[in-house]
């Protein structure tokens, strides 16, 4: 099955590419204008981020063009890399080794394979039920009791956030919404656009107006101005994209608001973990952005709720379509 590339989809692609071209031009002119050292560093980071955006959007577009399998493979790989950044940062002991091996090479691919098979029922419980029980069983077999609950909880949390929660983004593709069949790719695009633009808008508003810090102990760069401006702009953008979704404009606004608030919470929570471990980024795989997990932390927290809200309100229960 491939997605129908319809007119709205084309507008969207044109809009995103146009926006990126505009951003690149602005970045280029800023790099010519700004002279101060700190300003230069900011512009350099900005341009690195824009370049990385080109690559991320390119990869994402190719995955979408390939179809659901492409998107599932891409998000599966993202989960793998995110889990890797996560476990590299948190303390583990040699006795955790085989449980971690299972997490990387069995549970992660299994979750995405189940989604590819469209087994929604299994996909929604595989990690919260089966992996949840498997992890302590495998750990107890290793015979090491020191820090047992901590170790199990760390692995549980990694699987839930990096694999289960992220997998809800491509799981949107297997939602069968009446009157919206074969079009769910646009729902995934909607989520990704709102989440990522919320991050971008927060960054821009924060750089322009940011004064009052919102959580100085957790993330010194986040300000009230950035947060409110970002959430408002991204929600309005989401509302403006209602035509690509099964939602009305007002519903699209509500959904976008939920997505951006949870995305913000996700970013804050992951910052708390990084701060606790004494690092700034989870990795350095994406220039200017840090690690994969730094880029998708907002998706981890918004995708599951967006998925379930959509499923709850837009899929007629009791009737299979």
């Amino acid at each position, binding site marked *: 099955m491939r997605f129908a590339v319809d007119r709205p989809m084309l507008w969207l692609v044109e809009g995103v590419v146009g926006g990126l071209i505009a951003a690149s031009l602005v970045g280029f002119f800023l790099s010519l204008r700004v002279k101060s050292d700190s300003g230069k560093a900011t512009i350099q980071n900005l341009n690195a981020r824009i370049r990385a955006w080109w690559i991320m959007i390119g990869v994402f577009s190719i995955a979408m063009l390939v179809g659901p399998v492409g998107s599932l493979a891409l998000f599966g790989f993202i989960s793998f890399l995110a889990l*890797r950044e996560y476990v*590299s940062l948190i303390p583990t002991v040699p006795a955790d080794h*085989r449980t971690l091996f299972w997490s*990387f090479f069995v549970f992660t691919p299994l979750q995405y394979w189940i989604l590819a098979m469209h087994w929604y029922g299994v996909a929604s419980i595989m990690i919260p039920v089966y992996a949840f029980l498997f992890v302590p069983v495998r750990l107890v077999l290793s015979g090491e009791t020191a820090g047992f609950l901590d170790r199990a909880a760390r692995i549980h949390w990694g699987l839930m956030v990096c694999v289960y929660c992220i997998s809800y983004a491509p799981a949107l593709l297997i939602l069968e919404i009446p009157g919206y069949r074969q079009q769910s790719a646009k729902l995934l695009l909607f989520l990704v656009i709102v989440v990522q633009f919320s991050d971008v808008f927060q960054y821009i508003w924060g750089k322009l107006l940011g004064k009052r810090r919102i959580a100085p102990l957790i993330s010194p760069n986040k300000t009230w101005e950035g947060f409110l401006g970002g959430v408002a702009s991204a929600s309005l953008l989401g509302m403006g994209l209602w035509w690509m979704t099964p939602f009305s404009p007002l519903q699209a606004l509500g959904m976008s608001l939920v997505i951006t608030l949870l995305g913000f919470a996700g970013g804050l929570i992951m910052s708390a973990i990084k701060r606790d471990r004494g690092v700034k980024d989870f990795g350095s795989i994406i220039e200017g952005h840090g690690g994969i997990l730094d880029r998708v932390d907002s998706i981890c927290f918004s995708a599951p709720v967006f998925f379930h809200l959509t499923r709850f309100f837009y899929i007629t229960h009791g009737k299979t379509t």
Partner: protein
Amino acid sequence: MSWLGNAVAAGARGLAGATVRWLDCRPETRQRVYFANHTSHLDFVVLWSALPRALRAQTRPVAANDYWHSGLRRRLAVGVFHAILVDRSASGDRETQLQSARRSLDLLVDALERKESLIIFPEGTRGRGEEIAPFKSGLYYLWLKRPDVQFVPVYLANLNRVLPKGEVLPVPFISRVAFGPPLQPGDNETKESFLREARNALCALQHA
């Protein structure tokens, strides 16, 4: 060996997600002895793969004969990576031990005479990753014979988590390879002072 070696190196490096940093040290073609902490069988493969291609061809890992001496391991170590296999302090009386140590040293000095660089693990055996063990004296005797060669400390982080002692299947942690500034030994170093400074140089990279 070149394509197979580079393929294995790329695989190991991808798996171990190694980020490589050169701190006050540049990747140069001059002759060097890279000495590193030892926590995993992946160590020399990842260290070797962290070197630019031009340097790999002239750099030979030094590995323990008792582990790598036969079968597939040997083919991998010797055939692919051109490892030099040496005997670790063999059993027997003091005289045979000394002889075996001398033979090993001769092998390494021969390699240096051929303009090759070396990768060695002066702890002698794999540790558990937390602390760097005291160095064996081979490093010092190597320096006595060839003081003109640069001794470069290389700290390997997280490889013990990728493949801990006793495990066969790897877990893809992100590892780090840090090359530090070459040692600058004084004129009247004793064995103890040289080994202590070498170990300190490696410890300094631990938190760099």
